[in-house]
Structures are given as C-alpha cells and as structure tokens.
C-alpha cells in the first residue's frame, strides 16, 4: 500500500499504524515520488495527503484514475483543510473517501476496510 504525506511525523505515524495492521508500506513525501512508486509497483490502496508539494493529492488522484493500469486502485485522502470543499474535489477526482486530520487510528482502519473489504494484509501475521 502506498502512503504519500509531506509531514515526516505524520508519515511515520500512519506508516507505523499500517505496518502494525500488517500492511506493507511504500512511503513518499511528495506527489511526484508517489506517482513514481505507484508506477513501479501498483499498490492495493493509496493514501494521499491533499496538501503536499506538487502535484498535490487531488492531482495525483486524477493522474492515477486516468491511468488504465492504476485506475482500479482505491484512493483515501487525508486533509487538514478547514471545510470540505477540497475533500469534495478529491471525491470528484475519483477518491473513495477522505479523513480530516486529526483522526483516530480506528477511523483510518475503517476507511481502509470500507474500500478494500476483501483485502488480506499482504503479510498478515
């Protein structure tokens, strides 16, 4: 599963949670790196911060959804913006859901389950 987040502390936090839940994580700190990683190894799920160095999470979502090889991969967005307009924009771009920061780990877990219900952790313990 691919995680892109520019704040190093949050990147480590979400990465730690995902690993604890048994997922294998590829981490990126910008939209550009995220797209490169996604192309090199198509993930099961992508978690994108909206506000990161360009291309931002919404643009990355659009690019993924325009790629025939990757358009089936569900996207969950993370946002620290006030209001929901950016998140709505992300949903319109094809994201499956979003979480507003700060969020509890359970909320992230439920969001993941709701889009990849059948997903078996890649290296489930």
């Amino acid at each position, binding site marked *: 599963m691919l995680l892109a987040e520019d*704040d190093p502390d*949050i990147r480590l936090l*979400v990465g730690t949670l995902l690993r604890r839940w048994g997922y294998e994580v590829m981490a990126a700190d910008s939209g550009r790196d995220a797209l490169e990683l996604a192309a090199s190894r198509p993930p099961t799920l992508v978690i994108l911060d909206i*506000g990161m*160095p*360009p291309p931002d999470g919404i643009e990355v979502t659009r690019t993924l959804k325009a790629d025939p090889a990757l358009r089936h991969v569900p996207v969950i967005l993370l946002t620290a*913006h006030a209001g929901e307009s950016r998140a709505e924009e992300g949903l319109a771009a094809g994201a499956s859901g979003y979480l507003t920061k*700060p969020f*509890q*780990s359970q909320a992230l877990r439920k969001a993941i389950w709701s889009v990849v219900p059948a997903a078996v952790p890649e290296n489930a313990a």
Partner: protein
Amino acid sequence: MRLPFRRRTGLQPGYRELLERLPVAVYVSSLDRTSHAVYVSPAIVDLLGYPLEQWRETPDLFERAVHPDDRERVLAAVAESKRSGSGYQEEYRMLRADGSVVWVDDTAATVADANGRPSYWQGFLVDVSDRKEAERRYRVLVEQLPLITYIDSPHTAAEPPLYLSPQIETILGWRPDEWLRTPGFFLDHVHPDDRDRVAQAHERARQTGEPLHHEYRFQARDGRTVWLEDMLTIVHDDSGEPWYSQGFAVDVTARKEAEADRERLLQRLQRQNERLRELDRLKDEFIALVSHELRTPLTSIRGYLELLGDGDAPPDEQSSFLQVIERNAERLQRLVEDLLLAAQADADSLHLAIEDIDLAKLAVDCAEASAPTASARGISLACTVVATPTVRGDEGRLGQVVDNLLSNALKFTPPGGGVHVRVSESAGAAVVEVADSGMGIPEGEQAELFGRFFRTKRAQREAVAGVGLGLSIAKALVEAHGGRIDFTSAEGEGTTFRVHLPLAASAAAEPLSGAA
C-alpha cells in the same frame, strides 16, 4: 369764436352723434397747434374728469394731464409724428382732475388738407388701466419668484432676449440691461464644457418646437460657476407658427453639489465594500491556513499518544514517539504565540521587557538552536561575529526575530545550500544579517513580503508549512525596538535579511519608539 363741427373736424356732421356715443374719447387736434384740441368728444369727461369747456379753453391741458414720468416720451412721439406726418400709438399714464392716475392707449392718425399736407390728427384715447394693472400684477409675481424668467425670440440664438427678469442680478450678478444689449451674451457665458450641448439643445427646440428641460453650468459675474436648471417652452401663434419662447431658470448649484457629494460618498462606500470583501477573502484564506497549521501538529500529537497508549511499542520507540509529541506541541504553541503576537502588534500593545542585550551572543544562541534542523535538511549553517554590539531590547522578542528569519531561511533553502548569520556594526547601528542560498523572492512579490499572512505563490504551490506571520511579526518587533528590517533578494540565488537596531548608547539618548 368757434368753427362749425365740419370745419373743425373734417367730418360730416352726421357722424357727430355717432362719435359722441362711442365709449372712447375721440379728439381732433391741429398739427400746427399741438396742444390745442380742435374737438374732443364728451367721453373724455368720463375718462379724465375735466369738463369739456376746459379742453377748449386750456391750450396746454393735454401736456399737463400726461403723467410727468411719461411726458417726455409722449411729447417725443407726438413731435416725431408731426415731423414725419405719420400717426402714432402710445400707452401712457394720465392724471385725472381728481389727481388719480389712468392708463390710456392713445392712437392717432394724421389727416391731410386739400393740398395733401398733413394738417391735423384724428385720434382716440382708451382706458387700459385694467389691462395695465393685470400686467403689473403678473410682473410683480414673476419678478419675485426665486428664479430667472425670460422671453426670447424663437428664431435665433444670437439675438438678445426680449425680456429678462431682474432676479438675474441676485442669482448671477449680471444686470438685465448689460445682457439685453449684448448679442451672444447667453452662450458666451455658458460653461465651455456645456456650451456645445446647450447650443444644440436650443437649436433642436427651435426646429422641433418641443419644450426644452436641461441643466448646465453658467458663469456668474464674480466668476462663480452656477448650475442652472432651465425649462423653455416655445409659444406658437394661432396659425401654429413659433411666436416666441419663454422659460425660467433656477439656481440648482446646491442640489448639484449635494449630488456630487452623494456620488463621492457612494464611490467611497463601494471602495470600502470592495476592501471588506477583500478582507473577507483574506479571512477565509487565513482560517484555511491556520486550520491546516493547527491540525497538522495535532494529528501527530493525538496519533502518537494513541500509539503510546497501546503499550505495544518498545521502550526506544516510546521515547522517540515522546520526542515527536514534544516537537509538535512546540510547533502548536509557537503558532498560537505568533497569532497572539500579531494581534498585539495590531493593537499596538506589544509588551517589551527592556534590558541590555549582547546581540552577538543572542544570534549565536539562535543559530545553535537551529543547527539540528539545518543538518536534518542537509543545509550548512554558519555564524560570524564581526562586532559585539550591545542593544536595548527584549531578549525573548529579539530572539524570536532571529529565529523567524532563520526558520524562513532553512525552509526556503534546498538541501546542499547554506545559511549564514552575521553580526556587525554599521553607521552607528547594530546589524544582524541572515543570508541564505535559497530560491529567492520574485521581484513582483517583494513589496508584499512583510504583509500579514502573505505567502509567496511558490510557498503556497509547494505546500511549505507556515501561515505567513513570521516576517510581519519580525518587522513589528524590530520597529517596536526603534529599528528597521530590510532585505535584498535575487531569484534562484538567495535572500539576505538585515535587522538594524540602535546601539545601547544612542538608544538611551533617543527613547525606543513603540516600547510600551
């Protein structure tokens, strides 16, 4: 000795009865003996009150009966008639036997003798007092209205008007007579910017016969510009031809000025509205930005606390989690403090604890505190002390200034770049310089750089953390210390900020401004 009626009047005797029943005073008088009536019909007795005999017996009764104010004019008309041999028609006042005044219309024709030479007048006097009185009443009414009334020939604009009411002197300063004797006076004194429009409007009214209602500026005698509202009507005769035009003009300067004031006020309100909308937009942007900057550290704090709470983490991981929480709590606190400081700077209520400060030591301390961030970002950080000036100031606040400049320098300098802090003295001031080899500030954005919540387009695009408070706070703090802050920047090469602060000695002589 009296001549018979026929000889005296040149009329058949049969007409006498008719003449004497007419309600007008008929007279016959000789051109040779001007003032002596040859014949006067009895109606003159009703008209003027003198007995018939008196007319026959008093040669200068006519002259004496003409009102003294009109006498000169009447005698001149009579003399002219005598000279030219043609008749005359005059309206004038006469004094009755009882001393009262009567207005008469005196119409006379000359009659020629057998040789074809004009030898006497046949004329009649009609009492026109009622009409004159009505005219006088209208005139008094017209001339006491607070407006200029005029009567004009409908045919040409250049001709002076036929009548101008005397209010023109109160309203415009011009006397009716100087106006009436000067052709083109009206248009010559219309404001140059309105002249063509007014001339065209008059021309159109003359051609179409339609009434005209317009406003224009007119030059008063003392040079003032007076706004006139002018309503003109073309009066047609019974056959429908334009006869004359008449109208009135009102001084509407006060209204026009009020309108202009209102217009100016309206524009100011519109500008204020635009400014308020702009502030509203800035407020929305600010809320979005602050929300982002608050939520990000909160996410880490809550998230890592949750991880710690699980108790699953090994001890070394626990202590690094605590460090992350500490770091993010600090970040949150800094933002809250910056916001409060900005609000205080706005309210001009920055509180400074003033003491002597070793500026070099302060700069070195700040640089050392930033060293971990610099090395984490792969940026070399150096500090040079050229002089060790002492300044008067608030240590915490001045440290914040240097911290803000350093934090910006590290944020906007790519890995591999360098940041250099330098303390010196120049032109009697202490100078702290923070130079970076970063992206530089585009010229177009330099003017706004110290603006509250201002962030460069590039910082926004690249999602660089921050709310755009650091520099505005640094500027407010430096100025509260009686100093100033400036910078030089070249895009792609880097930026150098310089803080100039008064030296302690000179600062003592000159109290710090804004140090409340």
